[in-house]
């Protein structure tokens, strides 16, 4: 077996080790390279920044713990920004397995920013039906969620004063890891009830949402950990996403180098085989 053949059949545990080290070392010894802000993240930031105080900001936390590393920092950065701007935050989830996590993160950020449940924010929780919940909220928010996650009646909560349906929401953002998520919020929500919509998603999902962004169906998009790091930089409150960017840089480069090596040996093997045939 030639060197090229041996290299192409390298033990995958070596690749695992390389990726493991590329993730671990930058987390232990961060470099802190500057992060450039993309226009799609900036437009979400600018829109939130321009909202008047006490506007209704709806955050739909449509992911479960599997996507926590990418979407949790996005949610935290958005909530910090919304609370800092003194917006009324209405949070909910379309994913039943994300309910506990969504409640924890909202409570944690609200506590950190000194906000009061029922007055400054509310967590509506989860309701069955997927996209039907969005339509129902567009028709009447109180029919979709008669009570909040804690069991308190939603009607009469000061945070929801003047809010009857999705038409009264100033800005909504769905942080989605799949379906129902960002697309469902556009198709069943924004298109009919005419509110401004932004999106956040995992890195692998982002390319699929670019058509919605280009057509203005979404006014902005936070894609993956990189998007979260950009948002953290914009609000000048660096957190886990910025810390993770060095690790992501290193792993991306490790994969690029691995792919380059694999192609190098692949062509060398093809050349050897060609020579043997002639």
């Amino acid at each position, binding site marked *: 077996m030639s060197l090229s053949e041996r290299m192409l059949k390298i033990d995958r545990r070596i690749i695992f080790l390389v990726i493991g080290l590329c993730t671990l070392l930058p987390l232990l010894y961060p470099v802190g390279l*500057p992060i450039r802000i993309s226009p799609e993240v900036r437009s979400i930031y600018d829109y939130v920044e321009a909202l008047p105080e006490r506007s209704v900001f709806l955050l739909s936390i449509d992911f479960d713990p599997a996507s926590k*590393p990418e979407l949790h920092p996005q949610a935290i950065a958005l909530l910090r920004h919304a609370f800092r701007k003194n917006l009324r935050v209405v949070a909910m989830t379309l994913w039943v397995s994300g309910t506990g996590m969504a409640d924890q993160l909202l409570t944690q950020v609200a506590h950190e920013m000194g906000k009061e449940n029922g007055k400054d924010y509310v967590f509506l929780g989860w309701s069955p039906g997927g996209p039907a919940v969005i339509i129902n909220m567009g028709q009447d928010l109180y029919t979709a969620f008669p009570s909040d996650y804690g069991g308190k009646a939603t009607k009469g909560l000061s945070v929801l004063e003047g809010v009857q349906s999705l038409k009264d929401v100033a800005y909504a953002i769905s942080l989605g890891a799949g379906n129902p998520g960002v697309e469902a919020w556009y198709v069943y929500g924004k298109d009919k009830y005419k509110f401004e919509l932004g999106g956040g998603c995992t890195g692998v999902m982002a*390319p699929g949402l670019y058509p919605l962004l280009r057509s203005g169906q979404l006014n902005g998009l936070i894609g993956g950990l990189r998007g979260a790091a950009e948002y953290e930089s914009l609000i000048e409150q660096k957190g886990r996403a910025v810390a993770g960017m060095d690790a992501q840089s290193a*792993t991306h480069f490790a994969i*690029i180098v691995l*792919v380059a090596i694999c192609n190098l040996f692949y062509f060398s093997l093809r050349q050897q085989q060609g020579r043997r045939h002639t």
Partner: protein
Amino acid sequence: MIFLRRQLPLLITMITGLLFAAQYYVPHPSSERLLTSATKWLQIIGGFALVLGVTSLFHQHAVKIRRQEAGWGYSVVLYAGMVATIAAGALAWGKESLDGTMTGFGWVYTFMMVPLQGTMFAILAFFIASAAYRSFRARSREAAVLLVAAVIVMMGRVPLGEYLIPVSGDLSQWILNVLNASVRRAILIGVSLGAIALSFKIIFGVERSYLGGSKE
């Protein structure tokens, strides 16, 4: 019996399909009330679907355990996990915390479900790297184009890439915004047209596989 099994569901599908397709274009209050009430029903049916799903899962794994089929041990683990979680949830009234104290249900969620799901997702990075090494080869011109585009996007999406090759950020943005968006949009339009055609077939009873059972 045939009427109840075949004609009636087809009739309901046709009437509701046409009614709600038309409803979208009628902003009259009574039309809106109809939508409100229908979506409320949808939510209720969604709740029942969840119960149905869990029951079916229980049944499927009970059969596997009873027959001691290959991998029945995993079914026992699944059964134990589900029963324990449902019990913990019922005891805590479905709440992760009560009066600021974490319940058993909250403990299961925070210390079992969250790390397990996180681990599954994290493992992906290792397998993607291994798969990329084994299969991401420029075997043809098309594969070479894909490879170059992937490398540019991977570089442009991380600070180190932009630091080493400043133009990679703009190039990656162009690939995502122009090439990717146009192709995705074309696919999206095709899929949507297909969905419209399928909806018509279902509404008018041409496509009946959703009714289940044998062919008439």
